[in-house]
């Protein structure tokens, strides 16, 4: 393979070709950065078409079908159209910040791709703190919405921004708590190391509850239905980006689609084994294919969810997070930590050198999976009891209402305590 020049050995190739080592290093790093940053941008053009097609099929429509074969070029046409639109800045807007917001929106998503491991060899930066980096960059996304909402000088935009803070800050709590579980199992925060730790068994089987919470919390972070309160068309028209036109709006939209796609990639990396699959160690480029397939599964699931689930109210959103997701994630974290300790004390972990073996991973997976089942069982029982109490209370209240109506039909009031 020494004769073939590829991105992996580009530096050595260039130096052997007689180039200054510093310059050669710079060029190969620059190419890597450009490739990593361009990949999501190009992919998102195609993904908008996928999203519109799937949403159309769910709603019994055809979707885009005019521009290009099967409407494939529709997104390209839309992007070109956005470029020709008038670029409007509202009179009362805070100009500098107003123009800065789309750039922050875009950059905060592209930055996430720096730590995504595509194959055993191809990873932008194998940071030892990759999982934490993901959280840090994700929190920058909050700033873009705030800045855009405030600088537009529009009350609907500001209302959208207020909702965003509440939503994004709240859902970061279960997100972190769910992210700790795979980190705890693998004993590392590097995303590449996390993928290597899943060679024998994917974490989704060891920690299904954490995987589900991670996915739900991420949906809320992205602002996808059923959590699309930031841009609820029927309530606050378009949310924080209401005043933006032309390509600045396009940048917000592309950033949103890209964010949705990025969290699917990260879910695939953290819980579905990332690039791992058959023959990937013999031919590392296959990692792209496996990672792409896993991402597609998560992405299509998300799209169907978006097309079928109605939007939640803001109070439901908050109650769901603080009274449901956060307690479950804390309990799940404690149970997993305890079980991991038990597994290690009993020696059920794979023997050294056997970590990649599927069978050697089975004992600890079964223990952790049963632990997750217990958590789910307890939660479901509690919800059932709570729902029964609600129902009984409801019946008692309607009985009381009927009694009041019988005595005095004019005064229909709810009993005290409602």
């Amino acid at each position, binding site marked *: 393979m020494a004769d073939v020049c590829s991105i992996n050995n580009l530096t050595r190739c260039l130096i052997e070709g007689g180039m200054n080592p510093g310059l050669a290093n710079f060029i190969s790093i620059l190419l890597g950065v450009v490739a990593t940053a361009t990949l999501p941008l190009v992919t998102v053009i195609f993904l908008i078409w996928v999203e519109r097609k799937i949403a159309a099929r769910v709603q019994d429509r055809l979707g885009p079908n005019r521009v290009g074969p099967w409407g494939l070029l529709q997104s390209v046409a839309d992007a070109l159209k956005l470029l020709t639109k008038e670029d409007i800045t509202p009179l009362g807007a*805070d100009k500098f*910040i107003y123009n800065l917001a789309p750039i922050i929106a875009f950059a905060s998503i592209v930055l996430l791709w720096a730590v995504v491991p595509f194959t055993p060899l191809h990873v932008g930066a194998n*940071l*030892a*703190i990759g999982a*934490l*980096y993901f*959280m*840090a*960059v*994700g*929190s*920058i996304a*909050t*700033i873009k919405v*705030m*800045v855009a909402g*405030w*600088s537009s000088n529009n009350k609907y935009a*500001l209302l959208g*921004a*207020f909702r965003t*803070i509440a939503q994004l*800050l709240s859902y*970061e709590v279960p997100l972190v708590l769910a992210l700790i579980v795979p980190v705890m199992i693998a004993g590392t*925060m590097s995303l590449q190391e996390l993928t290597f730790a899943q060679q024998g068994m994917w974490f989704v089987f060891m920690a299904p509850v954490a995987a589900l919470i991670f996915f739900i919390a991420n949906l809320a972070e992205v602002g996808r239905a059923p959590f699309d309160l930031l841009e609820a068309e029927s309530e606050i028209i378009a949310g924080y980006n209401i005043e933006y036109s032309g390509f600045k709006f396009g940048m917000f939209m592309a950033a949103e689609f890209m964010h949705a796609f990025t969290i699917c990639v990260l879910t695939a990396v953290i819980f579905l084994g990332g690039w791992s699959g058959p023959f990937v160690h013999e031919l590392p480029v296959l990692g792209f294919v496996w990672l792409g397939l896993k991402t597609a599964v998560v992405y299509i699931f998300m799209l169907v969810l978006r097309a079928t689930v109605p939007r939640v109210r803001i109070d439901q959103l908050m109650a769901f997070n603080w009274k449901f997701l956060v307690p479950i994630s804390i309990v799940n974290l404690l149970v997993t930590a305890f079980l991991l300790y038990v597994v290690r004390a009993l020696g059920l972990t794979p023997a050294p050198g056997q970590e990649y073996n599927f069978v050697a991973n089975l004992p600890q997976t079964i223990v952790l999976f049963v632990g997750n089942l217990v958590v789910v069982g307890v939660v479901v029982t509690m919800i059932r009891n709570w729902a029964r109490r609600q129902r009984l209370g409801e019946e008692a209240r309607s009985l009381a209402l009927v009694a009041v109506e019988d005595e005095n039909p004019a005064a229909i009031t709810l009993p005290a305590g409602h």
Partner: protein
Amino acid sequence: MLEFNVQTLAFLLFSLFVLGGAAGVVTTRNLIHATLYLILSLFGVAGLFVLMSAPFLAVVQVVVYIGAIAILIVFAVMLTRSMTRLRDLYNHQWAASAVVAVLLFVLLAVGVILPVWGVNGAQTPTEVSDVVADTVELGKALVDRNQYVLPFELASLLLTAAMIGAIVVARDDE
């Protein structure tokens, strides 16, 4: 003296972020702009941490200061009345704050600058440690009886107390 390479360039850029951002915070009259300058300044500090081979601290700086504290400040500022074009000083205690600022500066000068550049100061930078600590060691140091377990527990206690206090304050009287 200063060797000019990419690291120096990055150091100068991040220092510019930190100092320029800090200057912007205190000079601008627009509170939202001040908050954004603060975020820029905090971001510069994160960059400096990266240059000092402390990526964990850098990321924590972004998560805690930019992701949480700065956003809460923005939220508070947005709810403040007349947040732009402030004309008057609301607070007439500038004399007292000037004294405090001078005292703080003197303390910093005595505590930080003199030991390094003073009469008997160490002229050459000394290596604090030749071991590059990773996150695992940091985690172990926080729960090690001989290292930082006491400050760690005290900080946790303080945060818990603050959280309970916040709940009590926000709670309706029933």
